[in-house]
């Protein structure tokens, strides 16, 4: 981890002082996420896409859908995969080259939240059992950063999957063959929503912005599904949470998640 800059230390003191009075640097309530704007189908060459802004954090997700070989032990299921990458234009500190551990974590946590919610029924994405299945790849690129990349990537991928249209393939002449003009939405079972909370001192804040992100002691990302169940969690950062705090974060994530789910639904119906 890079050493903390003097500026971040000064900001942290100010952020903590405000939190003692129940206030945040940007005037939000503690359990209030930043404004979320979702532009769907931003990339027409993708099978589904979304450009998402969460405050000043911006992510573009493109979904590509194509025939693939199944994994050897899961021939009766299609493939879903979600990635995340920081573009060098997103922040002066981003360097090109192999991904560093924080970026690997970002990609894996984003993937896990959507995968574990069973958002996509992959059993319906089989072209020929054990031979050929449909692969759904949701690739996120971060284009601007102001904290909380976890939720921004999750919303971008979820929105892109919600509006994606999958082509149809039949097994003809020993290979998957495109059936022209037959496009359907993906088999969507639920809408996962990731909510990341930062712990600063003894305060829990929803959707930390860049300054809060640099100041926080620990964080937790909790994903809930349309039924209000919790389906994935990741704690990070160099401090811990009490058992009470973890229970409280679970409740906040379901409550805040429900509001954000409505925005994702609105983006989905707006694209049709």
């Amino acid at each position, binding site marked *: *981890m890079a*050493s*903390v800059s003097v500026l971040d230390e000064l900001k942290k003191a100010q952020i903590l002082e405000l939190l003692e009075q129940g206030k945040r640097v940007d005037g939000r309530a503690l359990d209030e996420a930043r404004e979320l704007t979702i532009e769907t189908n931003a990339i027409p060459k993708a099978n589904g896409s979304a450009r998402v802004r969460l405050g000043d954090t911006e992510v573009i997700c493109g979904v590509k859908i194509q025939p693939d070989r199944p994994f050897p032990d899961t021939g009766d299921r299609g493939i879903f995969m979600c990635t995340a990458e920081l573009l060098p234009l997103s922040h002066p500190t981003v360097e090109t080259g192999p991904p560093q*551990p*924080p970026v*690997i*974590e970002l*990609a*894996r946590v984003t993937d*896990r939240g959507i*995968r*574990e*919610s*069973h958002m996509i029924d992959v059993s319906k994405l089989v072209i020929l059992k054990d031979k050929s299945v449909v692969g759904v790849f949701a690739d996120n690129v971060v284009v601007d950063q102001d904290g909380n990349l976890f939720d921004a990537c999750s919303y971008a991928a979820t929105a892109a999957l919600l509006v994606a249209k999958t082509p149809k393939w039949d097994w003809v002449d020993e290979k998957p063959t495109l059936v022209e003009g037959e496009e359907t939405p993906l088999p969507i079972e639920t809408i996962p929503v990731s909510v990341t909370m930062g712990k600063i001192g003894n305060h829990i804040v929803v959707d930390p912005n860049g300054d809060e992100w640099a100041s926080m002691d*620990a964080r*937790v990302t*909790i994903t809930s*599904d349309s039924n*209000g*169940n*919790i*389906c*994935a*969690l*990741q*704690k*990070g*950062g*160099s*401090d*811990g*949470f*009490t*058992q009470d705090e*973890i*229970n409280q974060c*679970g*409740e906040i994530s*379901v409550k805040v998640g429900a509001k954000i789910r409505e925005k994702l639904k609105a983006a989905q119906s707006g694209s049709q």
Partner: protein
Amino acid sequence: MGGRDATMVLLDENGIRCDGRKVDETRRIMIRAGGLKNADGSAYIEFGDNKILVGVFGPRDVHPKHMSNTDTGILRVRYHMEPFSVGERKNPAPSRREIEISKVIKEALEPAVMLEKFPRTAVDVFIEVLQADGGTRCAALTAASVALADAGIPMRDMVAAVAAGKVADTVILDVNNEEDQAGQADMPIGYMPSLDKITLLQLDGVLTPEEYKKCVDVGVKGCKIVYELQKKALNDKYFGNGGD
């Protein structure tokens, strides 16, 4: 990998699990403090069929130098699985999974270690999974805490870890490999009992809000059991007869 259909019975009508345990029972746990000659501190753990060796070096000079911090010491953790530790040979190069686990274990240990006492130095924790059978990150974190204590590095507490989970709609303690593959949820927890602080927490699988709270509770209780065994391992080495 939740929700896979398995012919195996994960929980029978008497509440007994596939390996004969009750729902609130851990696997057999054996922890040994020390054992390695060259490391500053070390530990070995057998957690069910998991076998993990941990070596600690430091506080020592930081290389490369630019990683050092003038305000505090830094902790570096490498979690690594041997090619022969799992069913099919694993590529020895670090996978994305191993890189993520290294990071979460590092962040689970940081609250415990008084790194601020050793500015400009590094403490290196090397975790080698010799045999894996579900729950390696918890077993590794448990052993790493003992190895850090064995190295004599000042700590606020030890982190004890075990997973809670859900199989057959029932919350269970200490998820084994079969239960992880075929079960409904897996929640690894790392906890500092003296400070009531959860420092490692992950979840995959669907839980209702009630089950979520119960899982955290069952996991924290399990950590307290593991904690006693960590203390016993250190006691045995430094105050008992089995020391080296």
